[in-house]
Structures are given as C-alpha cells and as structure tokens.
C-alpha cells in the first residue's frame, strides 16, 4: 500500500562544516509530555539546485525549517515554487543537500489536481484506497469511521458519498486537505491554487490549515499567491525567483524593494502594514498587487 516517503539522506553530522548559526538537530523533537519543543530544526536545505530538462529551475537555495512552524514560499509564476516542493518530497532529482532530521511522512495538497472528472471514484473510495484492500471492497465500520473522522476535520463529512468529479473547487480542496492529513503526516505541503477558489473559500482554507497544524502538530510549508495570507499566518517566508531572493520573517524581509525585485515592475508597491489591521482602501490596493501596474 502507500509507503510513507522517508528521509533518505540523513547525512552524517560530522561531515558538515561547523556552522555557527545552525541549530541543534533534534531527533527527538517532542518533549516527554508530547508538547512541541520549539527551535528544533526539522529540515535543512543547503545549496539546492534543480535541473529540469537541462534547464536550471532552482539555483542555490538554502534555508531551514523548524518543527511545528509555518513557512510560505512566494514568487511569480514559473519561479520554481512547486519544483522546490517536489524536490523536498523526493519527487524531483536535485543537486545540493536536503536533510530531514527525523523520519517524516508527507501530506501534499497539490495546486491543481489534473484528474479525470468522469472517473467514478467517490470521496469515500479515495480514502479507502489508502487502507487495507478489504476496506475498499467491503467497507466496514472502522473504515467508515476513519473516513468520517478525516473529513470532519475539514467540515466536509457530507461530501463522503459524492463522486470527486462533481465537487466544486472549494469542496475539492477541502477533500484534498483531509486526504493529505489522513495518514497523519508530520509535514504538510500546501500548494495554493491560483484561480478557481473564491476569496471566502481561501480564507477558510488557511484558517483551517492553521487550526489543523496546531491540532495535529504539523510542520507546514505552503506556496502562496496572497501576501495577506503570508503576513497573517506564517513564521517565515522564502522568496523564490529561480534563486532565493529573500528569506526570513515576513515582517522583516518583505520590503517594497524586495517585492519589486521579486515580482518585477508589474507590481504595485506593497504598503507595509500589518494584515491584522482593519482593512481600508489601502488594504484593498495591496490585495490586488499582482494585477495592477503603477509607475513610480
């Protein structure tokens, strides 16, 4: 059945050069009471490059992800965000180092699910396929309960008998989130869709993920196209445009100049303000930062 992807390259500690800022690699990242110990490094990425068909789509990316944290990857279209995710999950060949400091299971919510809308798979069956084959053919109470439980997390239990091809964009996304956390992953990769989901639905998805992350003690990496989301929800941000342009806490590194460099001249300047502040006209302007052009 589905085998959890495991961190293969837990490289020898002694091989690495002494690095002043490196945090201790904690293998036991949880305390005796099960509480998350903050500050233990879960993922270390060093000089990561990815070539696809001879073209370098990611160049020299270096960052650290702490356990239980939420990291956003931002950047324009084609900047290598999804490729970065694929490399981290072991789905793309890469050069450089990707070190997971403990055995991790991945949950993945893809940006766009290319699937056959006519394929007769129901939501229930999608989840049952991850269990013993007897559950798929015969059902059974414990299987049904597990499926119900997973979908209740995302308030989507009513979707269980539906065919996946008939779900709306927002419904599908919730099902995919539930699916991603079904096997109790340690790390959730969330690739935000660029289109197709209404703003209200989007807000729900993020508060949902924040909530799930806390409840299930997930480390979350997300690709976002909405800077409001980045400011409101994440601990650190990685700006990508093939190379890493910035990295750090969003309030620190997302300066207007930085965003200009990242998204190019097509972007309005970002007015640095805290997203939690009441939304005025200004906030409106910055929501649309990707679509407007403003000359200076």
């Amino acid at each position, binding site marked *: 059945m589905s085998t959890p*992807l495991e961190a293969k390259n837990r490289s020898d500690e002694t091989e690495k050069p002494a690095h002043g800022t490196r945090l201790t690699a904690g293998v036991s990242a949880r305390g005796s009471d099960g509480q998350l110990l903050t500050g233990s490094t879960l993922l270390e990425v060093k000089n990561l490059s990815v070539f696809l068909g001879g073209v370098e789509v990611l160049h020299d990316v270096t960052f650290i992800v702490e356990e239980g944290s939420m990291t956003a990857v931002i950047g324009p279209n084609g900047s290598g965000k999804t490729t970065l995710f694929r490399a981290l999950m072991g789905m793309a060949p890469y050069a450089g180092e990707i070190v997971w400091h403990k055995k991790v299971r991945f949950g*993945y919510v893809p940006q766009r699910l290319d699937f*056959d809308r006519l*394929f*007769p798979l129901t939501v229930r069956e999608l989840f049952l*396929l991850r269990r013993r084959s007897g559950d798929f053919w015969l059902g059974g109470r414990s299987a049904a309960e597990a499926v119900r439980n997973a979908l209740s997390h995302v308030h989507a239990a009513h979707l269980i008998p539906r065919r996946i091809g008939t779900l709306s964009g927002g419904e599908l996304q919730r099902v995919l989130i539930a699916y991603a956390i079904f096997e109790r992953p340690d790390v959730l*990769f969330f690739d935000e869709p660029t289109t197709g989901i209404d703003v209200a639905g989007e807000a729900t998805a993020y508060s949902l993920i924040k909530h799930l992350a806390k409840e299930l003690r997930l480390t979350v990496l997300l690709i976002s196209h909405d800077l409001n989301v980045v400011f409101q929800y994440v601990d650190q941000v990685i700006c990508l445009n093939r190379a890493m342009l910035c990295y750090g806490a969003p309030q620190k590194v997302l300066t207007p100049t930085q965003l200009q460099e990242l998204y190019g001249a097509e972007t309005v300047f970002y007015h640095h303000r805290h997203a939690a502040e009441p939304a005025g006209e200004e906030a409106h302007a910055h929501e649309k930062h990707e679509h407007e052009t403003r000359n200076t």
Partner: protein
Amino acid sequence: MLQLWQIIIGIVVAIAAAFLGTFVVSRRMSLVADALSHVALPGMGIALMLGFEPFLGGFAIMALAVLGIGVLEARRMVLADTLIGVLFTAALAVGLLIVPDLELIEVLFGDITGINLANGLLTLVGGAVIVFTTLRYLPQFAKITFAPELAASEGVPVARMNLLFLFLLAGTVAIGIKAIGVLLMGALVILPAASARNIARDLRETLIFSVGIGCAIVLIGFFVANAFRMPPGPSVVITGALIFGISLLVRRRS
C-alpha cells in the same frame, strides 16, 4: 459442442479484461488496447512459422512494444497518435503477410475449438496471475489513473506502475487472442468497462459490473458462435456493443 473448460477459459479472459478495462477506459487508452492487440499479429505469425504456441509469440512482441512505449515515456517523448497509428497498422500489415492463409481467419477473429488442454492451461495460469496482480495493485492503479501527481506524492512509483499496467494489458490481450482473435480482443477489454461506467455509482460498482458484463458477453457470444458455427470474436463483440447501447439508455433514464 462447447466444452465446460472452454467456457471457463473464456470467463477467465473476461475477468482479466474487465478489471484492467476499467482503468484502460478511464485513462483514455481504449485505442492503445486496440492497437496493442494488432501488434500481436506478426508475433503470432512468426510463432506459427516456427511451430510454437502463437499466443506466446503474440505476447512476446506486445511486451517489446510495451517496453518501447515505456522507454519513450521515460524520456518524456510522447507517442503521438499518428505514430501509434502508423507503427501498429504496419505491424498488422506485416502480420497479415506472415500468418499462413489457412489460419488467418482464426487468428483474426478467434476460434474456441482451437483451445486445447495445453494452451488452455497456459491461459488459465496467465489469467489467474493477471487478475491477482491487478487486484493486488488496485489502489496504485486507481491512484495513477485518477491523479498521477497525487499518487507520486504518496510514494507510488508511477512510471513502474504504468509499465506493470501495460504488461498486464499485453498479457490480457495475449490470453484472449485464441478465443476472441487479434482484431477484436481490444474490444473485450473496453466494452464491459465502458458499459459498467454508464450504470455504476462508484469505482467498486464499476469494477464489479464490468466483470459481470464481461462474463455475460463472453458466455452469450460463445453460445451464439457455437450455435451458428461462427468464429466467436464477432458475436462476443456485437453482444458487448448491444449491452453498451443498453447501458447508455439506462444512464439516460436515471
């Protein structure tokens, strides 16, 4: 007279074809299944010339074709429709020249009486292996059919599963060639699954209905062919097409 074991063999072929067909239809590979069966012809011709079991020759050459497709896919070279059309019809043409005239009709359209104990046993074992393997990897096949990218993220080896799937398909066509014939075996893979899809509510039902319909059309086809002294391929496929038509009507009404 139709023998019991001939019917059993027909049913084994139908079950293997029906399970795989569910995924073949969903993956829009109906034409691949059809074309693949045509590729078997030159292999069968060579086998007949050399005097060994024709469907082994057919399987060997289909396995080569499948490997070829696998290599091209791994190198991200997409096999164009046109290329499939050209290569596979060329194979059919070569096969038509190689296969002795005497056996041509049987090879093309099937022959129940050609099933003997030796090749029947081979068919049974082959069919059992195919059905068992398909059921064993059903979750993987369902996932790579539904959304390959999601499957990959769960650690499903998509390329290897694709190859396995194509091998099973080649095997299914091979074991069915004797009874149904090269030209029509592809249809036995597609028709039950396509009909089941019209009336089933979910994947489980699609698989179960597909197997049921596959068995039914093989049984009906065999009896009709036997009664009118025809090769079984056409009667099986026509029965399948009729059931497909009925399934469309049922879907309309519901």
